[in-house]
C-alpha cells in the first residue's frame, strides 16, 4: 500500500500523544477515509490496548481501532521532532518515547497483511528504524516500505 503524500507529516512539532493522534486523525477525516469519531475511538483504544513498541533505537507507535470506523483503508505517518510518550503494548504502565507514528486506518486488516508485514519487518531492524525516523518525504517513505520486503 502506498502512503499518500497528504498523510505524511515530517518532524511534527507536537507535545503529546493525544495531539499526534488528533493531527493524523484529522488528515484522514478530511479525506473521509475514516468516520467521525475515529480519533476518539483510537484514543479510547490506546488507553486499554496501547500500541507503543520499544523498537531500537527509537520507539514506534501503531495506533489503530476497529475497522467499522474506517471508510477506506489508509495509513497515516508522522515523525516527531521531539519524542512523545506512548504506553507500551502488552505491558502494564510502561512508557516509551515515540519518534515515529504509523496510524493504521484499516477496514479489513487481513487484506493489508502484506503492507503490515513489511512495516513490521522495518521495525525489527535498527538501521531501518533510524531511516524511518529520518524520512524527509512521502516518496522516500514509500521507497523504504517497498524496498525492504
Amino acid at each position: 500500500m502506498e502512503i499518500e503524500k497528504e498523510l505524511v507529516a515530517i518532524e511534527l512539532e507536537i507535545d503529546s500523544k493525544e495531539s499526534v493522534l488528533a493531527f493524523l486523525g484529522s488528515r484522514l477525516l478530511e479525506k473521509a477515509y475514516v468516520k467521525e469519531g475515529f480519533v476518539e475511538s483510537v484514543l479510547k483504544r490506546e488507553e486499554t490496548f496501547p500500541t507503543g513498541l520499544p523498537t531500537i533505537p527509537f520507539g514506534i507507535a501503531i495506533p489503530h481501532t476497529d475497522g467499522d470506523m474506517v471508510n477506506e483503508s489508509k495509513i497515516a505517518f508522522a515523525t516527531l521532532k521531539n519524542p512523545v510518550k506512548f504506553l507500551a503494548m502488552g505491558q502494564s504502565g510502561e512508557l516509551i518515547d515515540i519518534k515515529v507514528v504509523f496510524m493504521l486506518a484499516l477496514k479489513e486488516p487481513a487484506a493489508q497483511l502484506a503492507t503490515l508485514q513489511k512495516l513490521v519487518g522495518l521495525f525489527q531492524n535498527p538501521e531501518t528504524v533510524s531511516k524511518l525516523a529520518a524520512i524527509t518525504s512521502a516518496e522516500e517513505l514509500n521507497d523504504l516500505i517497498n524496498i525492504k520486503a
Partner: protein
Amino acid sequence: MKKLLIICGTGIATSTVVKGKVEEWLKENNLTQDVKIYQSKVSDEINRIDEYDIVLSTTLVPDNIKDRVIDGIPLLTGIGIDPMFEKVLAEIKR
C-alpha cells in the same frame, strides 16, 4: 494437532501480523500439520482460554490467565524472537 490462539486488543492489526509471522515460522520448521491457528481478541477468549494448547498475546492479559500466555511482542519488535519461538515449540512438542 495443537490449537494455537493469537490474541491482541481488538483482534485486528497486531494479531494479523503475528499470525503471518507464526505461519511463516511453522512452514520453515515443517510444523504446519501440527498446529491450527486461531485469531481473536482478548475479551472474547478470557473465559475459554483452556480450549487452546498455546496462547500468544500482544496485549496485557488478566492475572488469572497470565501463566497460560506467551508474550508475542517480540514478533513486532524483533527483540527476543528466538526465545519466544522456543517457548512455542516446547508447547507444540509437549
